[in-house]
């Protein structure tokens, strides 16, 4: 059902079991106990970064099926996404599975975009269930957007570190302990930031406007939620988001956390301002946040994925970097 200007509410969409498979840096982070599987090397025993990311995607998909006691034929649709050109990773993995798939791209906001598309289809009773499969990989990301991994350039503190993770989550109309209740679709917001080494701040305005619209559409405020978790604003983007709300006399600081800052230990690991990438938010959401919800620590969580909508060609044309943010609400039943 559409609510307000940009939102939906859902009556029958539930989050079931999920899987997160990560690379070495994530496994050395604070959440290592909570992941389903990890690889000790970035190549995940494959011949290229792209094959490695497919391996993560595939592993997470298979583990998700197993954890939910499902076979591929039980799945109505797979919504997938990653950061590679032509979202090649998921498309190639799904060659081997006999299931309808749709690929989505909203940069690092894809995970929640996938949840919204699935949520709408399930709630409309067009399908019974869906798997949202998302991945990102440090190697494929650097190769496509920045420099070769061995290049001796210097990254500033504002850089973010692409999370290497494959994630899969099963949503269905069958009841479970965690319900997907609301969604807000974001607008493309261009705050005229043009530094691809400062993406956290490029995305913060998009997160600000989406969260604000969510509050307006549902007539809520920060303290109605136990947690507002953003995707990959990391250190500088998070500060900017909090400041943007402060300018509006709204205080989100005490309920806000950012996935990019939760997945790594910035003091111990060389990850600059924190994690980013399509897999960053789902890797944290389906491990840490899901556990905290099931344990009863969190009852109502606003999940906001943020994406920076750029590519290397357009950046060379002296363009700025617009951002987009999509939000959903998860509630403990």
């Amino acid at each position, binding site marked *: 059902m559409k609510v307000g200007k940009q939102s939906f509410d859902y009556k029958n969409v539930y989050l079931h079991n999920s899987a997160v498979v990560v690379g070495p840096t994530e496994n050395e982070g604070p959440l290592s106990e909570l992941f389903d599987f990890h690889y000790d090397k970035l190549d995940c025993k494959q011949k*290229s970064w792209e*094959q490695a990311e497919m391996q993560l995607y595939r592993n997470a998909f298979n583990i998700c099926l197993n954890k939910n006691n499902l076979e591929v034929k039980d799945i109505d649709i797979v919504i997938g996404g990653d950061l590679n050109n032509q979202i090649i990773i998921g498309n190639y993995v799904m060659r081997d599975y006999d299931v309808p798939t749709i690929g989505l791209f909203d940069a690092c906001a894809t995970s929640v975009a996938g949840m919204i598309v699935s949520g709408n289809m399930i709630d409309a009773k067009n399908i019974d269930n869906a798997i949202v499969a998302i991945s990102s990989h440090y190697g494929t990301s650097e190769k496509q957007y920045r420099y*070769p991994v*061995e*290049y*001796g350039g210097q990254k500033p503190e504002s850089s973010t570190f692409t999370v290497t993770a494959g994630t899969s989550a099963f949503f269905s109309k069958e009841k479970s302990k965690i319900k997907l209740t609301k969604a807000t679709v974001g607008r493309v917001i261009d705050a005229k930031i043009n530094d691809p080494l400062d993406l956290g701040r490029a995305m913060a305005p998009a997160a600000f406007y989406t969260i604000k619209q969510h509050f307006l559409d549902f007539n809520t405020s920060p303290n109605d939620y136990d947690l507002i978790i953003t995707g990959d604003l990391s250190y*500088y983007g998070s500060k*900017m988001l909090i400041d943007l709300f402060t300018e509006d006399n709204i205080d989100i600081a005490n309920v806000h956390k950012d996935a990019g800052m939760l997945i790594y230990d910035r003091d111990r690991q060389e990850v600059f301002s924190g994690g980013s990438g399509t897999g960053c938010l789902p890797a944290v959401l389906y491990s840490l946040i899901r556990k905290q919800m099931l344990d009863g620590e969190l009852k109502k969580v606003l999940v906001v994925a943020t994406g920076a909508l750029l590519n290397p060609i357009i950046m060379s044309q002296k363009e700025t970097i617009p951002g987009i943010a999509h939000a959903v609400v998860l509630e403990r039943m």
Partner: protein
Amino acid sequence: MEQKVQKVKNATEPKRPLLKNTFQAFMAGGAICMVAQVFIEIFQELFDLEKELANNISVAIMVFLGALLTGLGVYDKIGQYAGAGTIVPITGFANSMTSSAIESKSEGLVQGVIVNMFKLAGSVIVTGVVSAFVVGSLMYFYGALFG
């Protein structure tokens, strides 16, 4: 809304530690040049070679070291500390070529390594030859006219 965003944007601009970075670039760049100078001295004094030959050999050795350290996965770590200190010396040129070549290995020898080797380093050759053509021509004709 727009103005508010711009105001916060300007207020939250991350500052780069200019002094620290410049000091590190100075130290690292100076050290790399000093290593090259040691080689030049060795070839000139010990092997009694001509200045130009000694210089060429020294450059070749530095390029080799740049390629080797890149392959070993060490150059990028030094580069994060050194910034311009590893980009400006000719070792940076070797690093840009080696890192592009190694990264493209997965696309095979021809379509990967060979095609992509000059992806980052080509700029030096283009800028260099074009500049040399312009400056060289100017100097040549100036010399021919005013001799």
